[in-house]
């Protein structure tokens, strides 16, 4: 007879418990990083809005770039991390990389939206239009759509045991596209418009302006890592909620057998 109390010998193999496994949404590291991020952002606001002078050509609109440029860089880094983590999912087949890929993609989308929004607000007074089909803008916009699709796929696959693998493949397909998109939009723009807009304008920046930008860059990267840690831990814990139910599910499943055993089956009685 199969003994009913045979325990699960191994934990489900997809689980790759990092040490120590998160038990809350924040850790000491993430709290310190959070304080640093907030402090740097405060400093950035002070420098960006008060201390740094208005730009010679762009006046106060240039202050938008203190948010725009760091958010663009963080967004590219975040999608890069998603692509890298997707490769690692296929290679190492661990849950950790899958959750990192997902978390990073979501944060990347937020930063891309911030980047595009500030870019439009800046573009209106400086270029006279909200949007222009510059290569960099077009690539960024397509990047946004590609990874929105990636996140949509994750949502559609919720609960599917193949989600990690399929999403990793989709993440890599999207990443393969990025350099081709970039090349094609660059050629396309140079052929059609014959001009490339420099995001930082002609004016050379220096001194306090450069310092403000640097502060915001560091604040942006810190903020990214901070959010990534928290988002990862939330996702990890969400997976555990389902998992704690797993042992109970096995026990419940086996108790069905007990019930049916109480009633002699037709086949057994026939055979004897």
């Amino acid at each position, binding site marked *: 007879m199969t003994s009913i109390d045979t325990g699960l010998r191994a934990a489900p193999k997809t689980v790759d418990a990092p040490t120590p496994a998160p038990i809350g949404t924040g850790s000491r590291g993430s709290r310190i990083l959070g304080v640093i991020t907030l402090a740097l952002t405060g400093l950035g606001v002070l420098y960006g809005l008060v201390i740094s002078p208005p730009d010679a050509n762009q006046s106060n609109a240039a202050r938008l770039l203190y948010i725009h440029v760091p958010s663009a860089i963080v967004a590219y880094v975040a999608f890069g991390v998603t692509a890298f983590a997707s490769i690692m999912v296929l290679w190492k087949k661990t849950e950790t990389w899958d959750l990192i890929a997902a978390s990073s993609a979501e944060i990347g989308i937020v930063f891309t939206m911030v980047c595009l929004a500030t870019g439009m607000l800046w573009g209106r007074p400086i270029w006279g239009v909200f949007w222009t089909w510059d290569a960099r803008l077009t690539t960024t916009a397509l990047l946004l759509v590609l990874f929105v*699709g990636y996140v949509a796929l994750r949502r559609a696959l919720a609960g599917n045991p193949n989600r990690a693998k399929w999403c990793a493949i989709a993440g890599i*397909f999207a990443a393969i596209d990025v350099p081709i998109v970039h090349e094609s939009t660059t050629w396309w723009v140079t*052929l059609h418009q014959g001009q490339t807009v420099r995001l930082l304008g002609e004016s050379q920046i220096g001194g306090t302006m450069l310092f403000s930008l640097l502060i915001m860059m560091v604040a942006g990267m810190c903020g990214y890592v901070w959010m990534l840690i928290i988002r990862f831990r939330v996702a990890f814990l969400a997976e555990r909620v389902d998992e704690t139910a797993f042992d109970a599910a096995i026990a419940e499943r086996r108790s069905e057998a007990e019930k049916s055993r109480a009633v002699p089956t037709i086949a057994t009685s026939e055979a004897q």
Partner: protein
Amino acid sequence: MLADALIVVAKDLRIEWRSRVGIDQLVPFALVVLVLFAFALDSQQTVLAEATPGLLWVTILLALVLCVQRIFVTESAPGLTDQLRLSGLDPAGIFLGKALGVFIQLLALEVLTVFGAAILYSTRFGSVGSIALMVCAALVASVGLAAAGALYGALLLGVRGRETLLPLLLLPVVAPVLIGATSAFQAALGTGDVTSVQGWRWVGLLAVFAVAYVTAGIFAFGPLLEDT
């Protein structure tokens, strides 16, 4: 791998031949889109003539989504994925077969839409060289479109809501093909300021896209069909 691809593509074309969804629905759909563009743009045909390459390729991308939808819907009947995985067919072969099926249908569609545009938008074709450019661009672009389409079609095979997800995932990915093929056609038809030398450079970019996605498909299809 290639033998398996031929088995799969022969089966898909036979299904197409019997059901005639492509001829009965895809071709009319493409023509309706061409007519809608004419309604939306103008009746004087100056804008239309200018925009013909772009309109053609947007039409083909929309038809691509339907074509991929169709060629994978036939695989979703109960028990088919199980049998396919039991069959012993090489996953890379299945991918190539599926992609080849999409490719053949796309080519047929492209020929028909180009003729449709020639009539509806009064397109004037240039020299032999420019026609060669158009043919090459269309062939190479179709390889890329078919490979990317087969990949995403298979990815979404078992996914709820795949009808709406497919365009969201596929269309941004094939955006470079739209840009490249449109520019190459502009060079060939002389509608934009693209020279024919630049047109051939675009064919090169389309080839890069095609190679990237055919390679990705050959490697990714095994894991895609597997359950974890």
